[in-house]
């Protein structure tokens, strides 16, 4: 195996560009998944099958089909409907939506984990339903689910390279571009492979520290 350090140093500027885009996708995609997942979880608690059934089917569908095809769908179909976003925005929406179907399950568990006595106390104090959710239930539920949400952020990190397929130049996209231009595949692909391992390792350390802080 031959290894060319000069190829590594040539690639590094592109690597940093790609890393920036990867982190951008990760942060924005996480925010979308946290928000939309919460909406799904709350809709699933509406006491009407006219709501829970469609929401259940839609989210099952999104969760059980490949993110890659969903990316293609949004990337090629939306323009046909005269809705045009940048590739990055499309990618963030797709990945956020995909992961919202996972975060909704996390929220559901968190909400169900709030003791029933909390609901009863809210009723006894006559708090309106909206206030019960925002002031009593959700603050407790979300605190419980932070570690699980964090795990999905780490999973999402490993799915960010899929956005390369819709022309987004995140880390893998940069590596492929560089490889094709310079006919050097080993170095850039190995660099980003190692980068993924390091980032997800650091992220899991950070998450464990956060978990410890939340537990006390």
């Amino acid at each position, binding site marked *: 195996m031959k290894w060319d350090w000069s190829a590594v140093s040539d690639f590094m500027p592109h690597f940093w560009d790609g890393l920036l885009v990867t982190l951008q996708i990760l942060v924005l995609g996480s925010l979308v998944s946290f928000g939309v997942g919460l909406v799904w979880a709350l809709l699933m608690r509406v006491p009407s099958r006219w709501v829970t059934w469609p929401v259940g089917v839609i989210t099952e569908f999104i969760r059980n089909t490949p993110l890659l095809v969903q990316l293609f769908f949004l990337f090629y179909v939306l323009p046909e409907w005269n809705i045009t976003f940048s590739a990055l925005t499309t990618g963030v929406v797709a990945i956020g939506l995909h992961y919202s179907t996972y975060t909704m399950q996390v929220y559901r568990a968190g909400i169900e984990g709030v*003791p029933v*006595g*909390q609901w*009863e*106390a809210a*009723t*006894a*104090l*006559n*708090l*309106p339903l909206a*206030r019960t959710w925002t*002031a*009593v239930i959700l*603050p*407790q539920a979300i*605190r419980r689910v932070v570690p699980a949400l964090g795990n999905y952020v780490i999973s999402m990190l490993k799915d960010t390279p899929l956005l390369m397929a819709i022309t987004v130049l995140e880390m893998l996209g940069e590596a492929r571009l560089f490889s094709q231009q310079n006919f050097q595949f080993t170095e850039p692909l190995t660099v980003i492979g190692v980068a993924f391992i390091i980032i997800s390792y650091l992220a899991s350390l950070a998450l464990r520290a956060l978990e410890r802080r939340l537990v006390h």
Partner: protein
Amino acid sequence: MSTETLPNPEKSPEQGGGELIRLEQVTKRFGSNTVLDHLDFAVDAGKHVTLIGPSGSGKTTILRLLMTLLKPDEGTITVDGQKLFPATEKERREVRKQIGMVFQQFNLFPNMTVLRNITEAPVTVLGMSKDEAVERAKGLLDMVGLADKCDAHPAQLSGGQQQRVAIARALAMRPKVLLLDEVTSALDPELVAGVLDLLRDIARSTDITMLCVTHEMNFARDISDQVLMFDSGRVIEAGPPEKIFSEPEHDRTREFLSAVL
């Protein structure tokens, strides 16, 4: 302990000794188990009523029905002349304003400070200004002997302290009726007396109507105007505490009292 700060619903004429709570033909089933069986009873305003009886006899179910945590399968419940069941959720919310409850497990909101626990409902439900709510909450905390715990979170308090905060939280809504559901059952023995003393004070110095489920027979004797003995979803004996505790008529009452006293 200052009693001046106690919320003191004025003795309004329509309430002066009149009937406040009425249950008619109330039935509650859990699956095939009938917990309350066509129950009738009424409580007059300002009275302190204690429900006693073996566990599973339906005492707590009555409190939970009055707090609308449960729905009766049959029958009507009226509070202060207004229907609680059957009624729309909107009507129920109005009636519920007059009722407060203290739970066995305290059920304080762990994500809020002690002060916020008490001010939350007066501000969001009664529309009280924040300053006024805080001032009253501090008065109530002073009364329950926890003036220095305003900024603590419930988890930092002992069980007895948490229950005293829960009592203050219920009183902050100035309810006409206070429901006490085995409020000392979850406490360590040495913390029970403090909470019971506080409730005795409240019983003595206010006109608040109390409905109390307890296993503390001495406490029941002290504060009650009336004691109701429950068995299998029915009231089998009722009367002033002197009578129930000293010369019970019913065999089941005698058995029960000899087991718990």
